[in-house]
């Protein structure tokens, strides 16, 4: 016989009544007190799951309920769903395992699973869609940041020839093309849009001292095209945002910041990884062509000097690109192999 105290609510009014509940060996539950005397089968009573030391509810079939904090008695008598969860939450070893498991799954997911999934998904995107995206992005950029190139015709032709040489050699998708633009804000820069549209700024062309340096830059951008980095980053970043929101969705007061910082850091990390991949791609092509890799190191160093973004220290984690020092070191290191 198990006996415990509870508060009884009839579900019709907010009146709280003190009752004493007893459960006998025949699995009969008796609720007595303050004008109440009810007897029911134990199996007709549903019990709320245990959550720390918060009160428990015994739901009776007619909508009335009893509230109690006598967890030992309740757990003794009633079977309740979710008991294993409470067992996990009580056990510090299980909690430590949960911490490790969380870290391992997050790390494995962000480091391997998500990039692999995005890589496969990116290749499944129909070319038609990618073309629409690329043209629309170019249109949007043209409207806001980019102006027509101001380089002399002869120089433009030389860049075009360099681009054609790299692109034709790489046997990329048919839509690949070069767009030269003038842009004050971006400085010396080059970037790839979906569908293989490569934009090179006038300042970048002027920064390059010879054809080979220019080709290194172009090969890097075509590396992004070859590896479908833009598609992959769109897919990966959406997945990261969704995942972080799901995990931290219940933290209302600080959710904005709590979700924004990890999302941002993970996305920047993916971006830096893509830069490494594009560098490696460009180096492989240059080696195949017998072009000295020193050209690539030279243009990277000049770019670093020009933009003052040599990087290093903590800023690296906030940046979309690896530090120039690191990239130059990687390029030179590969040259020595």
């Amino acid at each position, binding site marked *: 016989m198990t006996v415990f105290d509870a*508060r009884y*609510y009839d*579900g*019709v*009014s*907010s*009146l*709280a009544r003190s009752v004493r509940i007893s459960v006998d060996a025949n699995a009969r539950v008796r609720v007595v007190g303050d004008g109440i005397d009810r007897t029911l089968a134990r199996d007709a009573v549903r019990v*709320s*799951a245990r*959550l*720390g*030391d*918060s*009160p428990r509810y015994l739901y009776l079939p007619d*909508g*009335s*309920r009893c*509230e109690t904090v006598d967890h030992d008695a309740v757990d003794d008598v009633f079977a309740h769903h979710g008991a294993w*969860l409470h067992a*996990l*939450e009580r056990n*510090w070893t*299980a*909690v430590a*395992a*949960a*911490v490790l*498991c*969380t870290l391992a*799954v*997050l790390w494995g*997911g962000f480091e391997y699973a998500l990039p692999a999934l995005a890589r496969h998904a990116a290749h499944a995107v129909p070319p038609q*869609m990618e073309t629409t*995206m690329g043209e*629309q992005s170019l249109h949007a950029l043209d409207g806001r940041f980019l102006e027509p190139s101001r380089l002399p015709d002869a120089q433009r032709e030389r860049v075009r020839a360099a681009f054609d040489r790299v692109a034709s050699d790489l046997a990329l998708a048919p839509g690949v093309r070069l767009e030269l633009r003038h842009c004050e804000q971006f400085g010396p820069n080059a970037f790839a849009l979906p569908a293989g549209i490569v934009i090179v700024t006038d300042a970048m062309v002027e920064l390059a001292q010879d054809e080979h340096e220019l080709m290194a830059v172009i090969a890097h951008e075509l590396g992004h095209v070859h590896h479908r980095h833009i598609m992959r980053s*769109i897919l990966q970043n*959406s997945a990261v945002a*969704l*995942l972080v929101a*799901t*995990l931290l*969705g*219940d*933290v*209302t*007061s*600080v*959710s*904005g*910041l*709590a979700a924004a*910082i*990890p999302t941002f850091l993970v996305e920047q990390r993916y971006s830096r990884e893509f830069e490494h991949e594009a560098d490696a791609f460009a180096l492989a092509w240059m080696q195949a062509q017998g072009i000295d890799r020193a050209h690539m190191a030279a243009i990277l160093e000049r770019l670093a000097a020009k933009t*003052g*973004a*040599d990087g290093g220290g*903590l*800023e690296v984690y*906030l940046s979309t690109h690896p530090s120039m020092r690191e990239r130059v070191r990687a390029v030179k290191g590969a040259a020595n192999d």
Partner: protein
Amino acid sequence: MDAPLATASIPAPAPVRERFAFEFSGSGAEYFRIWIVNIALTLLTLGIYSAWAKVRNKQYFYGNTRLAGGSFEYTASAINILKGRLIVVGMFIAYHLAATFQPVLALVLALIIVPLLPWIVIKAVGFNLRYSSYRGLRFAFDGGYWEALRVYLLWPLAGIVTLGLAYPYAVWRRKQFLVTRARYGRSPFDFTGEPGWFYVVYLVGSIVYTGVVVGAGMLIVGVFVLAGMGIGTLFEGVDMDQVGNRIVIVMTVVMYMLLLLSFLCFNAAIQALIANHVWQHTSNGDARFDLRLNVLRVVWIQATNILAIIASLGLLIPWATVRMTRYRLGCFTLLAVPAVLDRFVAAERDRLTATGAEFGDALDLDLGL
């Protein structure tokens, strides 16, 4: 105060209102264990468990909130929440893909979704209240579509069109909508708050905040410029361009973080002032609510919570949440004649369990309202 006038016609002295305090008995260590097990299971089930996790989280906070000897209950079924989440995630992915690949299609989707928003809001608020109960009675929400349309679309739009002038009114209108359309059992809540107070809060808040940001910004720039000059004079031959660039980068990061932190604190202060006003002017029948948050305390707790969360890489989120909840509930009271608390009655329709899960039941959005 409320001394009855000495007239012969008063039959009995008015019953005395007592102050009932809300109490929160959750602990950071206990909630941490529930929270981390939730996260681990959510990850291992590829997100499916998140619905059950939400129910457990809410139940923990409801169950540990006590008033006059009774606790609050969250009774939503995780399956309904899961269905709602799947719909929302589906919509999110569809919209995101459309926005990326076919902006025209995204526009069409937006035109479909925007008129649905007021409906989604009332369903979400209704869901949360319907599955909240106290002393065996459910809360409920009776807000209608057209009022929600005005409150959630038209007034905020007016706020934008008038360059923020109508914004405090829009916030007041939203609070009024949320409070007056809610009921406990059969008994609706009452709201006597004034829009004027919202104007005062936002005006004074903006002035103070602008002052703090500009002042602190100038101070930081000054410190960094001095530091740069110090480095320049101490180390001859240092490339000043390089030093300058580095200082600008570090300063930008520091400023950005401080701006974010100060904005979150400012927001917490505004929300505290508004919450005080709203609850001090909210009643249900003869029971009146009272909330007395100390703004400086709230800002202090918010700021230290954020720093603790960042420093612990998120592991102190449960501790921070419990800490803020405990403070807020500790300032919250109910003024009522004790017998009144026993006399609320359930609405007839709430007592029946809904037959067949409505689509709306599944739409749980947890908009944090």
